[in-house]
């Protein structure tokens, strides 16, 4: 059965309230998100939808609109703290307000109709992907995120291998809260963005238990050379790489000849793997130590795919990807903000 027909069949099983929320696009499957939905579903969701529509392999998922985050932030105590954060430029006061806000916001309960809507979407996603051993990834998609002027990279939280329904709901709330942590608030202020302007959509996607993960910049971000690409790669999930916990392999490639211009083998002793009970760090097998994570054939495949994405997006891209069972999966793509 096609995804659309399956979705239609499943709608008939939903409560009328849940059906309305889908129609009103409070929750939307990634492929249904349009370019002009950025204020509703954020930069990451819009970019991911474009990847899907372009035929790239992307984990199935849905996005919870920023209107739900608005409902959370418009709640009286939270709003007052955000306004306080907007007003001050004193770092100590910002930190204090952000810490107090975190405590106040943690008592917030998701509206029951939104809980129902999210769990309905999870059920539909489960049916689509035929169940998932590693659970789901719950990720931020702020309306200021993954744009062309600044990235918001690493400011909000990502929850990996989230399995049961209660944990998914908690993760959604946690991702919302992460838009208002001292770290995120301070980043936004340094970019001249008042915290009140941030609206956070949340993506729930099938978790891919990656064998290899990495980032691909379709330009050399160190030199600004657009005729070269830069790849970093590690074994297992990519979180330790983007979080800067490990030193991965680094490859500089010539985009025209696909030749390797520079290769540095990383120094990692461990890898993060996805399992039934969450992600866990395990020792890197001896056979993989000191060896390149990617061979030339995989680098060529990766670069070839990255160049197609760059062409579709119309600008050099910062792409997070993984390989699972020899298939390349694109996790996200955003414009390089520093060329």
């Amino acid at each position, binding site marked *: 059965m096609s995804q659309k027909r399956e979705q239609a069949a499943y709608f008939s099983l939903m409560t009328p309230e849940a059906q309305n929320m889908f129609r009103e696009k409070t929750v939307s499957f990634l492929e249904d998100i349009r370019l002009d939905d950025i204020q509703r579903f954020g930069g990451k969701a819009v970019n991911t939808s474009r990847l899907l529509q372009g035929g790239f392999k992307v984990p199935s998922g849905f996005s919870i609109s920023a209107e739900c985050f608005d409902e959370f932030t418009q709640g009286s105590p939270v709003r007052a703290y955000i306004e306080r954060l907007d007003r001050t430029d004193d770092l100590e006061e910002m930190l204090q307000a952000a810490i107090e806000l975190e405590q106040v916001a943690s008592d917030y309960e998701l509206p029951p109709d939104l809980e129902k809507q999210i769990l309905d979407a999870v059920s539909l996603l489960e049916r689509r992907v035929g169940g998932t051993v590693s659970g789901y990834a719950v990720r931020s998609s702020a309306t200021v995120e993954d744009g062309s002027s600044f990235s918001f990279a690493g400011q909000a939280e990502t929850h990996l291998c989230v399995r049961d329904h209660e944990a998914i709901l908690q993760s959604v709330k946690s991702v919302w809260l992460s838009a208002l942590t001292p770290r995120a608030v301070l980043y936004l202020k340094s970019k001249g963005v008042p915290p009140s302007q941030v609206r956070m959509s949340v993506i729930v996607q099938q978790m891919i238990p990656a064998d290899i993960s990495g980032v691909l910049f379709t330009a050399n971000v160190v030199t600004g050379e657009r005729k070269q690409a830069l790849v970093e790669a590690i074994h297992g999930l990519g979180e330790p790489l983007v979080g*800067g916990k490990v030193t991965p392999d680094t490859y500089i490639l010539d985009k025209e000849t696909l030749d390797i211009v520079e290769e540095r083998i990383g120094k990692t002793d461990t890898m993060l793997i996805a399992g039934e009970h969450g992600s866990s760090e395990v020792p890197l097998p001896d056979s993989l130590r000191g060896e390149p994570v990617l061979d030339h054939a995989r680098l060529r495949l990766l670069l070839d795919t990255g160049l197609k994405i760059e062409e579709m997006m119309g600008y050099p891209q910062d792409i997070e990807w993984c390989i699972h069972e020899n298939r390349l999966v694109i996790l996200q793509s955003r414009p390089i903000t520093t060329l």
Partner: protein
Amino acid sequence: MKKVGEGLISLRISAQGELRYIKSIQEVVDLWKEGAEGKIVLVDDAGTTTLSPILPKLAGVVCTSGALGSHLAIVTREFEIPALMGTQLDDPLQLHGKQVRIEPEEGTSGILLADDT
């Protein structure tokens, strides 16, 4: 100055300044109050993007972990300052308060030089 470490450089530009070894958000606040202009900050965890409030004022960042795709490298590039990532250092504590220089080398390599007095 003598070479004390090497790593991956996030941007091919040099930076020189007094190094401060930062291990907590409170130390970020203290440096912000004191004035972070022209300082080079050394951190152990590239996930520590709480450096944001002082990043516009810093001359550079040295990080003992991470690489060019780490969020810290992406964010420092946005502020147009070099970050020397995955830098192996024998004695990070000994560098606190010293004049240091981040210098690009060939390709993505960079080195950290420190005043040897």
